[in-house]
């Protein structure tokens, strides 16, 4: 299950949604460290359009929780500049789909300043952003795009799926000396207006703790097939695994939790055990995470696989609006189950 690093004293936990857990992580760091600030569109009184900053303005005031104009280049650049001078800004890019208007700031500057400066300049900032589809928001508001960020050197890329990870990874991201892109799927947040996922609610320790960035979690262990996945697809994969268990298929579900760094060892160990692999990734199929996982196995030992692997990804098409079309492109439980049955056949 989820590995949590905490101090050994008694841990009190209660059930929180992913969104509440994220906010709690941010708030605890803000209490601890005055250099942490939050900025982005509608993060103040509105609390973030996906409830990623609810209540922070009331607690920390407008000096530390800043509503920005629609000026992504300016406020992501501002985050970088403040980080360079020792602050720890958390900048929210409302939807990852909007990265295009500010990508220069992200991949040429936030991600490269440390390297270009010969290691002299640190950029300890968090760029948090909402990802994912499934609720008919169309081609410009439904993408995951984590593979793009992971492809470009210089940024850690964190993708939590559970409430406990959402908090622990957020705290790790804030404390990290590197820029961390923290990508939360709208479907994991536990928002009342989204499709419900039972996994969006879970035990979260009250005290502050970190979850190490770069360590995958075996969220279900099994012997027959390894399902390597992340974010909302973890929820779907766990549900599918429960169903398939009734047919005697035992899935091992690996939640990557971060793309950069990627926990190669856990993937390889699991595949070595099961000999079968399905990668479930809500990003576009070609040139992305699923190909990367295949490459890791091919480079290490292709004989680990006793049958060809399967990928369940978004095909190389933009994400359509109509529910019937969108469901055909997303990695739905139906598609995941079919792929698992295929590799078991």
């Amino acid at each position, binding site marked *: 299950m989820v590995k949590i690093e905490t101090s050994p004293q008694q841990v009190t936990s209660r059930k929180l949604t992913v969104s509440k857990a994220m906010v709690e992580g941010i708030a605890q760091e803000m209490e601890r460290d005055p250099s942490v600030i939050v900025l982005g*569109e*509608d993060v*103040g*009184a*509105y609390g973030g*359009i996906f409830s990623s900053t609810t209540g922070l303005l009331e607690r920390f005031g407008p000096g530390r929780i800043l*509503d*920005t*104009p*629609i*000026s*992504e*280049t300016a406020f992501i650049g501002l985050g970088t500049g403040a980080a360079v001078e020792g602050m720890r800004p958390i900048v929210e890019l409302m939807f990852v*789909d*909007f990265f*295009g*208007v500010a990508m220069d700031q992200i991949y040429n500057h936030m991600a490269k300043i440390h390297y270009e400066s010969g290691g002299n300049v640190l950029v300890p900032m968090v760029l948090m952003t909402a990802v994912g589809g499934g*609720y*008919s*928001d*169309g*081609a*410009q*508001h439904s993408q995951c795009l984590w593979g793009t960020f992971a492809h470009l050197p210089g940024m850690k890329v964190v993708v939590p799926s559970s409430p406990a990870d959402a908090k622990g990874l957020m705290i790790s991201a804030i404390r990290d000396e590197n820029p961390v892109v923290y990508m939360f799927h709208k479907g994991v947040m536990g928002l009342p*207006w989204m499709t419900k996922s039972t996994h969006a609610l879970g035990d979260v320790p009250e005290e502050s703790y970190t979850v190490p960035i770069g360590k995958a979690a075996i969220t279900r262990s099994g012997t027959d097939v390894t399902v390597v996945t992340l974010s909302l697809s973890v929820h779907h994969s766990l549900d599918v695994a429960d169903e398939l268990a009734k047919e005697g298929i035992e899935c091992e579900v690996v939640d990557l939790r971060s793309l950069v760094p990627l926990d190669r060892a856990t993937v390889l160990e699991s595949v070595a055990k099961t000999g079968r692999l399905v990668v479930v990734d809500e990003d576009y199929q*070609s040139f992305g995470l699923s190909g990367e996982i295949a490459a890791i196995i091919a480079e290490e030992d292709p004989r680990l696989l006793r049958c060809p692997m399967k990928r369940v990804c978004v*095909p*190389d*098409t*933009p994400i*359509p*609006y*109509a*529910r*019937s*079309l*969108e*469901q*055909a*492109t997303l990695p739905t439980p139906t598609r995941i189950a079919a792929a698992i049955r295929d590799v078991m056949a």
Partner: protein
Amino acid sequence: MTQTTTPQLVETDVRLRLFERMVILRRFEKRVYDLFLQGFVKGTSHLSIGQEAIAAGFGEAMRSDDWTFATYRGHAHTLSRGVDMAPVMAELMGRAGGLMAGKGGSMHLTSVEHGMMGSYAIVGAHLPIAVGAAFSAKYRKSGQVAVCFFGDGTTNIGAFHEALNFAAVYRLPVVFVCENNLYMEYTAIHDVTAVEHPAADRAAAYGLERIIVDGNDVSEMYRIAQARLTRARDGYGPSLIEALTYRHNGHSRADPGKYRPDAEVAAWMERDPIPAYRERLEREGVTTQALDAIEERVSIAVDRATESAKASPPPPAEAAYRDVWSDGGWQWRS
């Protein structure tokens, strides 16, 4: 309100058409809201209820081969170019009979044959694209004008400034229309903008006139549209218009708009463009029956469009794989 153009007479039949356009936009969108609450419209939707005078005035003034570029808040601009209600409704419901066969949805309404060149969901994205269309009109000497609608919040993104400068330098036939509804999503525009009038106060930076109009007055919108379209067609380059208006509903979906002060909402509801225009037409001698007949006709049309959209099936899954490439296909390999 300051206005820098010669007023033109608005003819009687045009006045009725302006009224009818606004009623179409209002009744259509009220239905969309109901259908959203009933679960028929599943995706997001951004309504222009309260802002109809702008789309109506421009829709009436534009030449049929002029181009509209709109934002995600684009239902009104689409309908005002004469696109039928039924395929728009079907698109919003995600049906096969939709304007874009279900692919695009509410935020991407497009109808090339009507000059509706698209709705864009990334803030600021369509300003440079409208400039490109205007460039092609000038290059081909076609006499077409591109009209680009956007919100107050859009004036704070780089693309706005880059596009304006470019259009001014090349004297391109493009009319930029900023619908200042005082909010960018849930944040008041004044809280995040250095100047009081987000568009008009920046016009001078690009050598453009400062134009502020009452965006809730459809005849004023019609006059300014005519004047600025003509000016663009005559080769005098771009205009930037700031139209003051207010959205009655929330930003999108079921947003109740709680972040807006009650008194402000009440004051703007008083200035609803449709009853105001109706009263004015009555004062000018248009009969109640004539106006009621328009309302009646539109209401029947909205019912019909709704029924027709509901009767359309969901698009088949294979349709997702069509039209990624110009040959109709989707696979990157072939």
